[in-house]
């Protein structure tokens, strides 16, 4: 082990059936260091953290901890806690109905009696020393999310942790709250705690971290001092494209730009929803393919959800072909010819126990009306047509959708919306978690539909795919639209610099 290191990981391997999630990852953390762990979705960040906290057991590799001779074995969250590794998750894992002090101490000792006075005193001391604005006797649920997050950290600190893992703690905090959290992190750093910080917000990385480790596709890309790695380089390392190679890879079959000056099919003005995006304007023309881009959590999904009325819309006006329309709930959007393939296929897309056939016809059926069900024959005709057209691999039209593979499930949802023959189709991450062949199929399909006159918004974490399909891209950062790129600006370099913001 290096001097000064509190934690070292050597050659960590972890596979799941069909996926090599981690392949020989090394990682080291020093005392009093804030170390950012970066990577896009599926890079292996969360797997690494789960290995470290004992949620998963590693297949191969060693974990060394300061103060332990030789490699330590971590088999459960309890083991990790005893070894001095504390974790604060994105979702707050405290009990909102208990007091702040209780949340800091519950489940930690085997005593039978609860000594309130001692506990509250201890909590008060800890809260004060960390400068957390909460009273020990206050109910946790009455604190803001930021303070709850800090209480979770206080619990970790009180357990005398040497390593503190913060897994996307800032995703639900506002600017002020983030600042409070950073102050706390710096305090802990001064005390010699090593902190691993996982986040999607680049600004925050550069504000608070000392070092960055980048993972991609389960492999270590490298460890960098923060001052040696400018933002654009960081983004390029995360996405796995060298800047020079990326200047332009637009392929021949990309969509042509339609700038004929006609009124857009849909115009949205000043749109915002309860999901917390800053109001934005947006429009799309007939036959156009555009996209929202930005890192995960930048608000791109929230934008399209607002367009479809999936989240409660707070402000904004909508025009179709220049005429004002109202979109309050999904059915309004559907009746106006909008289709929406949601980001989270499992939660928002499929109806697991229903058959492929029922999943395909659902949206059109709802639009047609309660008293006008399709006959079985019509249903099978629709289902067979799209199973063939999209080459969906399923045993039959009556197979429950949940037993299909991810890619085929996605095709079923796509079929569902194609069946409604929308004027405007929103595809949020249609290629996530599916095999390469299907990814290409979907992109080709998008271009074909656009050439037939359908307007499409295409969102993907893989910029390549978007470059290949979109003629215009709206760039998001921190829940705000920060730029719009088209024509010659549409290349990796420009996109990355816009995403990164600040310097470029």
């Amino acid at each position, binding site marked *: 082990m290096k001097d000064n290191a509190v934690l070292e990981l050597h050659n960590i391997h972890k596979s799941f059936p069909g996926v090599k999630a981690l392949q020989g990852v090394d990682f080291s953390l020093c005392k009093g260091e804030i170390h950012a762990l970066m990577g896009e979705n599926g890079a292996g960040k969360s797997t690494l953290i789960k290995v470290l906290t004992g949620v998963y057991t590693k297949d191969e590799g060693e974990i060394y901890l300061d103060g332990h001779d030789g490699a330590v074995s971590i088999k459960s*969250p*309890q083991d990790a*806690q005893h070894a001095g590794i504390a974790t604060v*998750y994105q979702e*707050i*894992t*405290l*009990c*909102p*109905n*208990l*007091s702040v002090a*209780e*949340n800091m101490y*519950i*489940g*930690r*000792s*085997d*005593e*039978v*009696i*609860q000594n*309130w006075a001692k506990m509250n005193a201890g909590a008060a001391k800890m809260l004060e020393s960390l400068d957390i604005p909460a009273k020990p006797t*206050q*109910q946790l*649920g*009455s604190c*803001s*999310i930021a303070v709850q997050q800090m209480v979770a950290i206080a619990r970790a600190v009180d357990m005398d942790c040497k390593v503190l893992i913060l897994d996307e703690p800032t995703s639900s905090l506002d600017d002020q709250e983030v600042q409070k959290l950073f102050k706390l992190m710096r305090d802990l750093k001064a005390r010699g705690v090593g902190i691993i910080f996982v986040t999607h917000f680049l600004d925050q990385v550069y504000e608070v971290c000392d070092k960055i480790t980048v993972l991609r596709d389960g492999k270590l890309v490298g460890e960098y001092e923060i001052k040696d790695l400018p933002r654009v380089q960081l983004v390029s390392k995360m996405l796995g494209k060298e800047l020079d190679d990326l200047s332009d890879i637009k392929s021949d079959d990309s969509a042509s730009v339609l700038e004929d000056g006609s009124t857009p099919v849909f115009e949205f003005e000043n749109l915002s929803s*309860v999901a917390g995006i800053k109001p934005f304007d947006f429009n799309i023309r007939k036959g156009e393919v555009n996209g929202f881009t930005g890192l995960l959590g930048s608000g791109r999904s929230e934008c399209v959800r607002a367009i479809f009325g999936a989240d409660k819309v707070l402000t904004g006006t909508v025009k179709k072909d220049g005429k004002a329309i109202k979109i309050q709930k999904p059915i309004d959007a559907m009746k106006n010819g909008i289709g929406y393939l949601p980001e989270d296929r499992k939660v928002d897309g499929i109806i697991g126990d229903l058959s492929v056939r029922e999943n395909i016809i659902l949206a059109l059926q709802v639009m047609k009306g309660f008293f006008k069900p399709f006959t079985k024959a019509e249903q099978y005709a629709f289902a067979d047509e799209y199973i063939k057209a999209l080459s969906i691999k399923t045993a039959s039209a009556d197979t429950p959708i949940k037993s299909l593979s991810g890619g085929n499930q996605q095709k079923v949802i796509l079929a569902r919306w194609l069946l409604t023959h929308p004027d405007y189709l929103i595809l949020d991450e249609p290629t996530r978690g599916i095999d390469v062949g299907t990814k290409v199929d979907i992109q080709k399909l998008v271009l074909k539909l656009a050439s037939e006159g359908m307007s499409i918004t295409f969102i993907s974490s893989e910029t390549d795919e978007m470059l290949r399909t979109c003629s215009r891209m709206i760039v998001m950062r921190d829940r705000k639209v920060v730029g719009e790129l088209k024509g010659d600006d549409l290349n990796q370099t420009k996109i990355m610099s816009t995403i990164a913001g600040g310097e470029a």
Partner: protein
Amino acid sequence: MLKKIKNMTDSNLLLTITIVVFFLMYIGAIVFQGKGFLKPQTFFNILNTNAALIILSCGLSLVMITGGIDISVGGMTALVSMCCAVYLDYKGGNVVVSMLIALAIGLGFGLVQGSLVAFLDIQPFIVTLAGMFFARGMTTIVNTNPFNVENAAFKALKETRILIPGMGSINKKGVYVPAYVEIGVVVALIIVILMFIMLKWTKLGRSFYAVGGNKQSALMLGINVKMTKFYSHIICSMLGGIGGYVYFLHVGSGAATHAQGAEMNAIASSIIGGTMLTGGVGNIIGTFFGVLSLSTIQNIVASAGLDQAWWTGITIASMLCLFLVVQSIVMARKKSSIKK
């Protein structure tokens, strides 16, 4: 003032509402229904008739705080009464053994229901619904016809009255009648105090709240969620056994129709007493006042001349409905305010 209310914990807020409601109601009863409610004995009689309900409600509050429910306690009460009655009369047994029988029935129900809910993850409502029907059916199987217990030792215990000095009143004939409570009331009060202490000052007590508040979090905080759920059902069913015996002591008979709807009254009392059905929030003192509120309302209904039986059911149900809706609105508001 408003800020103070805002800063209150959920438990304390709902507890305050309950106590205020109870006192307003009792004062209202005194004002509108006259002197009857001024007599201390009227109040003690409420305790005497509802001692068993207080015990059952304590058990229910506990499972509800843990995020579950138990609707078998009414059936258990009937079963305990019948078994003890049969034992005492037909078999001529002694009183202590009959108490043990009651506890054993409670433990048996607790073990079965607790393991089904905690270890097999079956909905507590279905499990205890079956428990309720099983208990009612078994009561009939043990003995079909209702009958009074004539066991001398038991009768002596049943007639035992604990006099409360200084609370008596002069009756119409000018004779001083001392105020009294039955043994059951003492048992009930002891259980209220024990449960209060357990929930407030023991680690186990706090883990009930943690599990009810957020199961997933409780697990991450290092609490054994399954065992906690299991214990909650064991304790609730044991209290069902004790409550059943106290009920038996009060009525002195066994019958299949005993304690009909007691589970509903116990749930209603807990809810009125500020226990949230969604779990994690509740207070035994509140439950105590919940029972008192419920029975006071029944007394008011009765003394207002609305002595038809149906009024009781309707008033309890409407109170229950009111408090349920209030809880659901309070929770919705809280959620949205935290989101912002």
